[in-house]
């Protein structure tokens, strides 16, 4: 305890108790959020190391650093760890767990024990994946396409499948908690249309998790049945249909893309509004576009299968429906941009991440148009174009939003400020490194370089070297926050309760919050982003005088 600045040590959720038991058996949503933060950071590092070796191997056209078998296991580990153990739980399980009860003015989640159970279930899933990694790996790709996964691969498919299966249950538990908490535990006066947009987006995300994840579980069980008992489901030699696997897999995994990006959109809505000092333009449009994305997201899975042998007419329908998702996404981008208009904008680190998010998400979304367009997708499907597209959404979008959110709420979570200069510097480094890594991959993909190749024709080398060089900048960019955030725990400035002068209920309690979040029941009398009414304006505001003149 470095508490020389604290006059009377204030009791909060972190200093209630220091025992390991008090952490491992906690039912406090804030502590569970921290447990998740530690777990997913670990898997982010594992997935990142796998990606590092992949990028190093691709520096040359030959397979010189690793051979095919190892390479295939590395990109599989990268995909499985990043998708199931980092991106899906990232914002919902860390920031969602920490913030949803605070934002709705509740003492905890609706089911605190279920919440703790979800972390243990997640840890079991993580142990499966770790076991597989050390026992020799799995080489099916994170997509597990049958019949390769069900009959042909002789790597650890079953254990990985079990890991993914179990991880699904932990996200279902978190989602149930979020939905029930939002329905039943909102503070008096907090009507649906007064809720922060972050809560709206996590509510929509939770709906997708609950409706989609069971289908993934079923699909994995069917793979297991075919692999273990030769029940013919996907392998034609046993009487199965391999395209059926793709329908089932993408019925979950396309909505899963929205599980991964919607929470990021929620974070960005909060940050843009706070650092522009303005109510988000088109609040209701942003809120309902999240629900629209959740609904449309379930109707577009067949756009992963334009060349798979599904009916040509199914292809036409799925293409048309895929474009329908573009509209609510575009609505969000336009509304965020319009929020800046006539704002009072400052550029702290979270804002840099949020502005970077808008740019990268726009590029990722627009290239989504290419792959939704039938004839163009026929050419770029399963090439690096697709890799670049979804990394713009998942890394350029979701990871930027996640880091923005971590910085934004870091003072609330830890009671310490992060070092602003370092943080701004690494935000810019990550933006530059990211573009250098993934923009060349769009060109590589259009040139025709297929994904999952460890050796490739020589003419692709320049762009691959550029991409690997960018990846090294990106890696350094990620290393900085890891270091200075840890540093700030001991040496960071003490955080006030509302360092950003933001409006949410979470800022009206201490940093870090007391174990029971609020002293007394908060009552909401204003809409979510009423800066005039909710944030005390200590300093003279030059723009207010301007208002009178204009």
């Amino acid at each position, binding site marked *: 305890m470095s508490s020389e600045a604290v006059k009377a040590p204030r009791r909060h959720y972190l200093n209630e108790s220091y025992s390991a038991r008090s952490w491992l058996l906690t039912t406090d949503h804030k502590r569970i959020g921290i447990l998740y933060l530690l777990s997913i950071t670990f898997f982010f590092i594992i997935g990142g190391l796998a990606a590092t070796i992949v990028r190093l191997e691709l520096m040359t056209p030959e397979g010189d650093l690793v051979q*095919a*078998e190892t390479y*295939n296991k590395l990109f599989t580990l990268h995909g499985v760890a990043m998708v199931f153990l980092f991106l899906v739980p990232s914002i919902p399980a860390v920031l969602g767990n920490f913030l949803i009860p605070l934002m709705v003015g509740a003492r905890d989640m609706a089911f605190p024990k279920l919440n703790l159970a979800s972390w243990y279930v997640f840890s079991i899933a993580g142990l499966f994946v770790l076991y597989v990694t050390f026992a020799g790996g799995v080489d099916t790709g994170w*997509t597990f*396409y049958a*019949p*390769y996964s069900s*009959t*042909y*691969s002789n790597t650890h498919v079953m254990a990985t499948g079990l890991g993914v299966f179990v991880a699904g249950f932990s996200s279902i538990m978190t989602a149930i908690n979020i939905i029930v908490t939002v329905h039943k535990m909102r503070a008096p006066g907090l009507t649906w249309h007064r809720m922060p947009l972050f809560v709206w987006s996590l509510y929509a995300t939770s709906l997708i998790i609950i409706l989609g994840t069971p289908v993934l579980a079923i699909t994995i069980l069917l793979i297991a049945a075919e692999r273990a008992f030769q029940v013919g489901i996907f392998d*034609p030699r046993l009487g199965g*249909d*391999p395209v059926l696997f793709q329908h089932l897999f993408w019925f979950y995994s396309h909505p899963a893309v929205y599980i991964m990006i919607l929470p990021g959109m929620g974070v960005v809505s909060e940050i843009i509004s706070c650092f*522009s000092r303005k109510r988000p*333009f*088109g609040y209701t449009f942003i809120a309902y576009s999240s629900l629209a994305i959740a609904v449309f997201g379930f109707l577009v899975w067949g756009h992963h299968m*334009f*060349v798979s042998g599904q009916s*040509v007419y199914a*292809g*036409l329908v799925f293409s*048309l429906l895929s*474009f329908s998702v573009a*509209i609510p996404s*575009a*609505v969000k981008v*336009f509304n965020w*941009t319009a929020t800046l*208009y*006539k*704002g*009072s*904008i400052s*550029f702290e680190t979270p804002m840099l991440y949020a502005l970077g998010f*808008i*740019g990268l998400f*726009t*590029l990722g979304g*627009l290239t989504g*148009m*290419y792959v*939704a*367009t*039938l*004839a*163009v997708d*026929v*050419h770029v499907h399963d*090439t690096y174009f697709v890799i670049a597209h979804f990394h713009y959404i998942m890394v350029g979008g979701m990871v930027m939003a996640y880091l923005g959110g971590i910085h934004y709420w870091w003072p609330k979570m830890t009671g310490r400020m992060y070092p602003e200069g370092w943080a701004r510097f690494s935000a810019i480094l990550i933006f530059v490194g990211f573009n250098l890594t993934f923009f060349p991959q769009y*060109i590589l993909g*259009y*040139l025709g370089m*297929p994904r999952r190749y460890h050796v*490739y024709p020589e*003419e692709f*080398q*320049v762009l691959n070297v550029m991409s690997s060089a960018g990846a090294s900048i990106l890696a350094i960019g990620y290393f900085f926050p890891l270091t200075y955030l840890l540093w700030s725990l001991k040496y960071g400035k003490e955080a006030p309760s509302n360092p950003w002068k933001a409006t949410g209920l979470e800022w009206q309690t201490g940093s870090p919050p007391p174990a029971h979040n609020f002293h007394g029941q908060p009552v909401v009398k204003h809409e979510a982003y009423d800066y005039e009414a909710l944030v005390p304006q200590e300093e003279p505001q030059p723009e207010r005088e*301007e*208002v009178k003149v*204009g």
Partner: protein
Amino acid sequence: MNTEIQFQPEQASTLAPRVDALYYYLTGVSVFMTLLIATLIVFFAIRYRRGNKVDRSPLDLRYQKWMEVIWIAVPLVIVLSFFGWGAWLYLEQARPPLGALEIQVTGKQWMWKFQHPQGNSEINDLHVPVGRPIKLTMISEDVIHSMYFPAFRVKHDVLPGRYTGLWFEATRTGQYHLFCAEYCGAGHAVMKGTVTVMEPSDYEAWLSGRVPDQTPVEAGKALFEEMRCASCHQGGGTQGRGPSLVNLFGKEVRLKDGRTVIANEEYLRESILTPAAKVVVGYEPIMPTFQGQISEEGVRDLIAYIKSLAESAPTGEEP
């Protein structure tokens, strides 16, 4: 290291310039939208930075609804144009023109086998004539593969247990890549080769310069005899234990359960491998399965032979 960067692969098929045109339309719209958003963000960020004295009077919210309507409607029209253009080309890709030269493709871990109608076969490399539509009929022996010709802008998955197809018409002689695009295991990245587009006369010379194996029809006939298919399917007008195969291909077949099916490749393949699935009216399900006894290439040869029985039927030739 070759440091020259290309931005598009060679255009070597009738389809390639048409796909590229759509790609450049998409790119034009994307560049415009990206610049629009980026410019607005930078402009607002500078003009409305905190401390800058500018007009921040409250927005006139009367227009807000109209702005939302505009930025829903305009993108909607644009994406519908993407959809229509892409769908039009996709439908053309899906329909091979009549009279296309049909080449049989078998994919397996980790090689491609091509069988030309004249009997020549090749591994991983493919030779085709320029200016003539080529139709590939493809099947896999094991897992899913995907046949991809970047220079022709075509790709289609190759499935086990089922025929799929793609077609292209090469417009420029030369050598181009041919890749497996669907991850299929350890040798995925080496399951590739070269497609050589030749002048038709060179193609003929190439065909005759290589020792042709049996044509598929001949091979099919030999297999038909080896498997003693004729003991039931002896054809002609006489009622054997199995239905006649003469003049069968492409015709409607009435089944025992009242359905009718067209006797196409898929039906014949199923009837060889799982005969009990669709039994012809008037016959008993007594045929044994040939699953696992005949390779995919063998099945294809048999189908080629049965096809030839339909083409030569008017001359009265008996099997």
